[in-house]
């Protein structure tokens, strides 16, 4: 174990800004990408369902 306390862990031996700036932005970027691909799939599915429903109605 490298750390005596939580504050030591967050300080990263004086490199806190650089280490957490790297890990934080990476985590945020991957999370946002995940949310965006999910949103894209949901939007596409909703749009296609609406189109298909309109097609069925016009055929009836």
């Amino acid at each position, binding site marked *: *174990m*490298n*750390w005596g306390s939580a504050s030591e*862990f967050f300080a*990263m*031996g*004086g*490199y806190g*800004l*650089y*280490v957490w*700036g*790297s*890990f934080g*932005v*990476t985590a945020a*970027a*991957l999370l946002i*990408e*995940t949310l965006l*691909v*999910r949103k*894209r*799939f949901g939007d*596409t*599915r909703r749009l*296609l*369902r609406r*189109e*298909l*429903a309109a*097609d069925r109605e016009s055929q009836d």
Partner: protein
Amino acid sequence: MSQPLINWFKFASPASFYPLAGKLWPWFAALAAALTAAGLWISFFVAPTDFQQGEGYRIIFIHVPASWMSMFIYCVMAFWSAIGIGFNTRLSGMMSAALAPTGALFAFLSLWTGALWGKPMWGAWWVWDARLTSELILLFLYLGYIALTAAIDDPRRADKAGAIVSLVGVVNVPIIYFSVKWWNTLHQGASVSMTKAPTMAATMLWGMLLMALAFWMYSIAVALYRVRSIILERERHATWVAELPEMQR
């Protein structure tokens, strides 16, 4: 003629790849989550403090894997582009298109974490060094691919144009990789080599490899998820799309 064990061309059709991708992505996502947890644990709690760079070196655990992924994803895009041009398969263009945003993201993260590492160790966020500059060109190649394919309305023509960009741009990948050997750079040499024993502590190496595997699984999961949207968008008028269970009332 004997039957092959797996008919690869079956999955070259979007109609059969769509459900396959839907079945596969959760497994890759689960693997990515487990590997990230293990990798982060080693990165922060097992790997020792570096005797030269103190705790600042821990950026390596995402910087190197992100850089590897940015180069590897570009190679995979070039591979699908070559298949697309050679066999005229529709799915390959969709695979390239699904990979490009994730590759661009990793190229950006490589530069971002590199800047945050360069500042405390070199005293500069950015230098026009061969390694850094060629990685920046890789980011521009990704952005160029995305912009070009988005600007062409006909998806098949967009795929062809994008395929040319990725096949021409792939020469940049070995340039990035060997830049630290070919030129006198500020950037350090390769951290892991196929021919030499690793020069770093075993736990540091394990942390890096686990994070690299985690990013790899993440990329596969996201690309499979994204390609499903792309398939639906492009095949929207096909009968099989209308018959999908998720499209019913």
